[in-house]
C-alpha cells in the first residue's frame, strides 16, 4: 500500500482517527506522518506514542465505553487513586501515570494492547527473580505438566515418573510458600 499523502513511499503506519465522530483510516509513510503532524517530536524520529491517543479514542467510540457506562456509572470519572491520572487524560496523552494505573484502567486495556501488540495481552518474558519466584514456579509447573502429557503419550513411562515426582515436589513447595504468606 502506498502512502496516501506523497504516493511515493510505502505506507508503514496505519491508524484510525476520529473526526467529528467519523472514523477515518489513515495510511502514511513515516516521513509524511511527521510532516503532516501525525507524529510529534519523538525520540529517534519515530514512535507510535502519539498515534496512540487516536487508538484509545477509537476504542472509546466503538461502543466499548457504552458497555461500561451501563455497568459502571462513574466510568467517566475513572481516576487512578495513586497518581490522580484520569482515564480521559490517559486516553488523550496515551501514557500511564504510575504502575497502579494498570490496575485502575485494567478493564479497558485488553483491546488497546491487542491492537498495539498484535493480539497479545499477556506477558511471556523475563520475570524478576526476587519478586517473581512464585510466578516462576507456577510457570515451571505448567511446563512440567505439558512435558508429562507428552511423555505419557510417547509411552516413555520411566521419564514420566521422574517428571511426576518433580511436579509433586514443586506443588509441595508452592503450598508451603502459600501458607507462609498467610501466617
Amino acid at each position, binding site marked *: *500500500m502506498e502512502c496516501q499523502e*506523497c504516493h*511515493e*513511499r*510505502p*505506507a*508503514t503506519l496505519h491508524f484510525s482517527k476520529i473526526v467529528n465522530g467519523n472514523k477515518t483510516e489513515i495510511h502514511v*509513510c*513515516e*516521513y509524511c506522518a511527521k510532516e503532516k503532524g501525525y507524529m510529534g*517530536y519523538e*525520540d*529517534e*524520529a*519515530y*514512535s*507510535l*506514542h502519539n498515534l*496512540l491517543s487516536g487508538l484509545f479514542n477509537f476504542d472509546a467510540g466503538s461502543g466499548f465505553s457504552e458497555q461500561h457506562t451501563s455497568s459502571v456509572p462513574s466510568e467517566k470519572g475513572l481516576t487512578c487513586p*495513586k*497518581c*490522580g*491520572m484520569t482515564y480521559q487524560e490517559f486516553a488523550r*496523552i*496515551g*501514557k*500511564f*501515570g*504510575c*504502575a497502579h494505573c*494498570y490496575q485502575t484502567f485494567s478493564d479497558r*486495556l485488553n483491546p*488497546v*494492547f491487542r491492537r*498495539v*501488540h*498484535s*493480539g*497479545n*495481552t*499477556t*506477558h*511471556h*518474558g*523475563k*520475570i*524478576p*527473580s*526476587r*519478586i*517473581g519466584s512464585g*510466578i516462576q514456579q507456577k510457570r515451571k509447573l505448567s511446563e512440567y505438566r505439558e512435558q508429562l502429557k507428552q511423555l505419557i503419550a510417547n509411552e516413555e513411562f520411566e521419564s514420566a515418573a521422574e517428571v511426576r515426582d518433580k511436579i509433586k515436589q514443586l506443588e509441595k513447595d508452592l503450598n508451603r510458600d502459600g501458607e507462609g504468606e498467610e501466617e
Partner: protein
Amino acid sequence: MSLQQFMNEAISPWMKEEGPDSDIVMSSRIRLARNFEQVPFPIIADSADLEKVLLFFQKEYEHQSFSNYNDLALVKMRDLKPIEKKVLVEKHLISPHLAENDEEAAALISSNEQVSVMVNEEDHIRIQLYFPGFQLEKALEQAFTFDDWLEERINYAFDEKRGYLTSCPTNVGTGMRASVMMHLPALALTQKINRMIPAISQLGLVVRGIYGEGSEAIGNIFQISNQITLGKSEQDIVQDLRSVVNQLIDQERKARQLLVEQSELQLEDRIFRSYGILQHSRIIESKEAAKCLSDVQLGIDVGYINDISKSILNELMILSQPGFLQHYAKRMLSAKERDVLRASLIRERFKLEI
C-alpha cells in the same frame, strides 16, 4: 583540541571494534525500560519523587557498586551545556527526550560508551547496550546482567499478567526494544527495499529510514526493531529480528554482487565521484555528505577502495551533525557555516587516512 583527539571523541570506542557482518550491520542495540514500583512515572511525578530515583543512582555511583561496570560515569543533565547534550544525543548515548527533562534527568555512561543507563527518561530507568555488528544475543545477555543487578536493589513495577509496567503502553511486557542499524545501499539503489518494508512490518517489526526530502533514506541507513513487547519472550523477539536481519543481509549481499557484475563501471564511477566530492568539496550539506559517505562505504565493502578505515560511515555520519560541528567550533553556527565546517572536517579526516 587537535582533530585526531576530536575524532577519538566523535566515534565511540566500541564502534572501532569490528563485529560480525559489520559490512552491513553497523550496530546492535538492546534497550530495557524499567520503573520503580512506588514512584509515579516521570511524565506526572513531582521533582521530589524524581529526585528519589536520581538519588538511588547517585548513591550506587558513589559506592562504585555497579556490577561488572565499575567505569560508569554519572552525567546529570542540569550540569550540561546545550551543545554537550546535543553531542550525547548525536552519539545515541542519550535520547532527545532525556535532554529535555533536564532537572532530575541523568545518564550513567560506561567509558567505552557501550552501556548507557538513562535515569528519569519517559520511564525511570532505560538500560541501553550497544555492540558493533550483528550481536543482539550478546547485547541481550549483558543487558540482563545489569537488569538482574538492579532488580536485587529496586522493587520494579512488575505485574504477573502485564510484565514490566512502563509509562507507554507500547513498551509494556518485556519493556525491550531490540534494534539493528543496517547500511543497505544496494537494496536502496535497486529500490528493492521499498518492496521489503511492508512484508517486514507484517512480522511485528519496524523498518525506519531517516528520510530526507526524497524517498531515499539518508545515507541508506535503516533501523530494524521490534514493535511488539507483549506476549513474546525477549529471546523470541530477538530470534524473530535475527531471522529478518539475516534475510536482509543475504539480499543486500546478492544485490551488491549483481550491481558489481552488471554495472561495474557505473558503480565504480558513482563511488569514486562521491569519494572525490568528500575529498575536495568546500561546502557540503548533510544530505549530500550522507549520500557520498554511503557510496564510499559501499566502495570499501566491495573492495574498490582499500585505503580508508572500515567504519568511516559510522564515524563521519556522527561527526557531520550540528551538535558535533558546533562543539568542535566551540560556538553556535549558521547552517551555511556548518556546511563549510563539515566539508573541511571531512577533507581533513580523509587526509589522515592517506
